């Protein structure tokens, strides 16, 4: 064979190709004009913004395809701002692309590792200085420093103590007591069993004593969902059945998984669904979890009626409502 076969080699940077604007003054002039037009478009954008600000009333609406009936003030203010910014950028980049030098430049890299000599010096210095501090020899200093550093971290933790109170029984207790009336949310009206047809639901809260104020903290624990079924549809043990009243069953609305309001009741299947993570609870079986990530049924509230015939809690919740926590015992 006459021809020598060689390994494939790096052919090096390809030859530079000139742009039209580099060689042709006409093209350069055209590029210049393009850049100028882009900058002018930006100026027009600002003018659009200014005129929108002063001349378009804030309650002007225009109909546009795709968007629909849109607030013109917000739209043109935004479009003006967008154009004023966008076209400055386009102009600058077009300028750089067409008129600024585009010869590729090669720069050498340096290795980050220092020359061996410097490095040895550096390492020696560190060793030497560390030795001078004598941390290794003076174990008393080392240990006491370790102790104080370990302890100093406690102070910020301690000083943050007043961020909040201790939980105490706050997570386990709700406002429900034996005899607390269930009232509608919103509206605060007491409910009689006959107010609810079969298949009806009602969002309820505990009735407030006069002068009491309901906070979001209360709602976050007290919200209860009332559902009326036909009594024969229940599939409950005797105790839980006794917690219902004429087919009306009450559950905490605060999800036992992560605390969202579980109020999505499907009348036909008798299922409750939490829209956050799709835990599904079977109302007929005391809100047993039948799908999704929740691990516990929704706590059931025992209900009965008072002397005036209004629905009341028979007893407080027998377990904490809402998501799990470490101290929860079941």
């Amino acid at each position, binding site marked *: 064979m006459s021809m020598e076969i060689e390994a*494939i080699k790096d*052919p*090096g*940077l390809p030859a530079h190709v000139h742009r039209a604007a580099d060689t042709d003054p006409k093209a350069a002039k055209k590029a210049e004009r393009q850049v100028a037009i882009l900058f002018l478009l930006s100026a027009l954008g600002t003018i659009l913004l200014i005129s929108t600000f002063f001349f378009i009333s*804030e309650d002007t609406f225009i109909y546009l395809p795709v968007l629909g009936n849109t607030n013109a003030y*917000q739209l043109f*203010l*935004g479009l003006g*701002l*967008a154009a004023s*910014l*966008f*076209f*400055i*950028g*386009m*102009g*600058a*980049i077009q*300028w*750089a*692309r067409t008129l*600024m*030098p*585009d010869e*590729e430049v090669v*720069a050498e*890299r340096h*290795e*980050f590792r220092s020359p061996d000599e410097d490095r040895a010096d550096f390492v020696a210095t560190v060793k030497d200085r560390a030795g001078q501090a004598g941390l290794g020899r003076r174990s008393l200093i080392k240990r006491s420093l370790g102790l104080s550093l370990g302890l100093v971290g406690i102070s910020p933790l301690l000083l943050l103590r007043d*961020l*909040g109170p*201790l*939980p105490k029984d*706050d*997570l386990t207790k709700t406002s429900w007591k034996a005899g607390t009336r269930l009232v509608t*949310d919103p509206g605060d009206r007491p409910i009689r069993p006959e107010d609810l047809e079969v298949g009806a639901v009602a*969002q309820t809260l505990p009735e407030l004593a006069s002068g009491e104020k309901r906070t*979001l*903290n209360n*709602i*976050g624990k007290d919200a209860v969902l009332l559902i009326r079924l036909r009594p024969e549809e229940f599939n409950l043990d005797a105790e839980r059945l006794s917690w219902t009243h004429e087919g009306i069953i009450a559950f905490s*609305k605060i999800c036992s*998984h*992560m*605390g*969202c*309001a579980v*109020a999505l009741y499907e009348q036909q299947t008798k299922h409750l669904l939490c*829209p*956050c*993570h799709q835990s599904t609870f079977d109302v007929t079986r005391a809100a047993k979890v039948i799908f*999704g*990530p929740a691990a516990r049924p929704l706590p059931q509230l025992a209900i009965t009626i008072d002397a005036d015939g209004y629905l009341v809690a028979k007893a407080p919740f027998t377990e904490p409502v809402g*998501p799990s*926590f*470490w*101290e*929860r*015992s079941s």
Partner: protein
Amino acid sequence: MTARERIAGNVASYVDDRTGAAKWMKKNLTKVFPDHWSFMLGEIALYSFIILLLSGTFLTFWFDPSQREVVYEGGYAPLEGLKMSAAYASTLHISFEVRGGLLMRQIHHWAALIFMAAIVVHLLRVYFTGAFRKPREFNWIIGVGLLTLGIVEGFLGYSLPDDLLSGTGIRIAEAIIQALPLVGSYLAFFAFGGAFPGESFIPRIYTVHVLLLPGIFLALITVHLMLVWYQKHTQYPGPGRTEKNVVGYPLMPVYMAKAGGFFFIVFGITAFLGAVASINPIWLYGPYTPGQISAGSQPDWYMGWLDGLVRMSPPLETHAFGHTISWNILIPGLIVPGILFTGMALYPFIESWVTGDKREHHLLDRPRNAPNRTALGVMSLTFMIVALLNGGNDIIATNFHLTINQIMWFSRIAIFVLPPIAFIVTKRLCLSLQRADRDLVLHGRETGRLLRMPSGEFVEVHEPISPEKAWLLTQHEQNPPLALEEVDSRGVRRPGVIKNKIRARISKANAEAVPKVSVEDLKEIEHH
């Protein structure tokens, strides 16, 4: 010399007289930046951050971070007279009464979504091209830190308006804190100043959102950029590009104009989105109260995968000795994300442990030439996408006539099955692409022209590829797997045999490749 140039020169000497920066400036103004669109992804994130600082400052002028109860008396009729927090009322005020307020709110929120999306695509670019390798491991870790903080910062941001959706998000965050063993309920009470929702949380996260985290961001971004500057940018392989050089355009003026211009582009496009597309219409959600909920309550997209994991979790809880551990919250909400993000942060070290490669790398890999890494990336991405889809399962169900139960079961199975399949398929695909590269170098490009041989046989004419292309397809290294002997030269078993065995096996799998074209191959083909 024109008058302009003279002025520029005078400015330069004026600065040097006072700072002595001439040498440094000279070096850096001519600093070379390689030009490639994928190198702009990190810049999108950087510029979004600046947009967030600007638009966020605007919003703070009117936002009242307080959970004090007020009665709404603003201009939006469907909320007239309702009780709400001052935070929500002031956000309504910004949206309806402050001129340009709604635009700025929307720009701020869109910029946050773009910020996170840009971080993710930037991370993918860095990962798939191997740009995280020595000496850039620190920057990789900083990047993972920025991503993590970005998720937190975004969550806090959309929690501030105290509307029904954001309150639901906070409710879920509280449940996660509360689920921590031992300290959960205490931490939750300290964070919320008592029971959920309390009146302290929004003022507290406001300080974190506008001061603490942006400060940390600024510091980390500064270090991130300084390292890029100092270590010089990586570059894609190609003719004339080596590990020892960097080919591109000088900072002044080309890169300054392009990068500076690109800032305006990013701002302009964000403003465009803010103008034409509604985001987080808080007036429709209504004020937060724990007794209300909306169908399809979702977090913003960068939290969606977490929500998806929580949704698909099985109902596991342990009740023992009077205590409860909620695995259904801890595993998807903390343990799995913890493992994923730790693994991601440590990946550069894991890869270098597997390959035994301790050298510097400035030339990027073509993803196909690192099949294992690419496959691992696609596998992780598949995991995330399955989780993300499940996070929107209710919206998907209603739009595509599926059931949430089907999607949930699909996700529960797919989260285990699809990622390994993605790994295998991607690896095979990479190896096939390597084979295609090899064929291209050996046999040239198919021209589509048919030639009839004297024997009557038809053959397609192949055209040799250009030397530049041939170099691109063969410039990469193909290193053999680590040789880890079980016994040393004196016949004594080395310590850590099992560890070494595992390492050798992974290393072997990692080194699997279609041999690139060698001199021998070329000689052989010449003989035919």
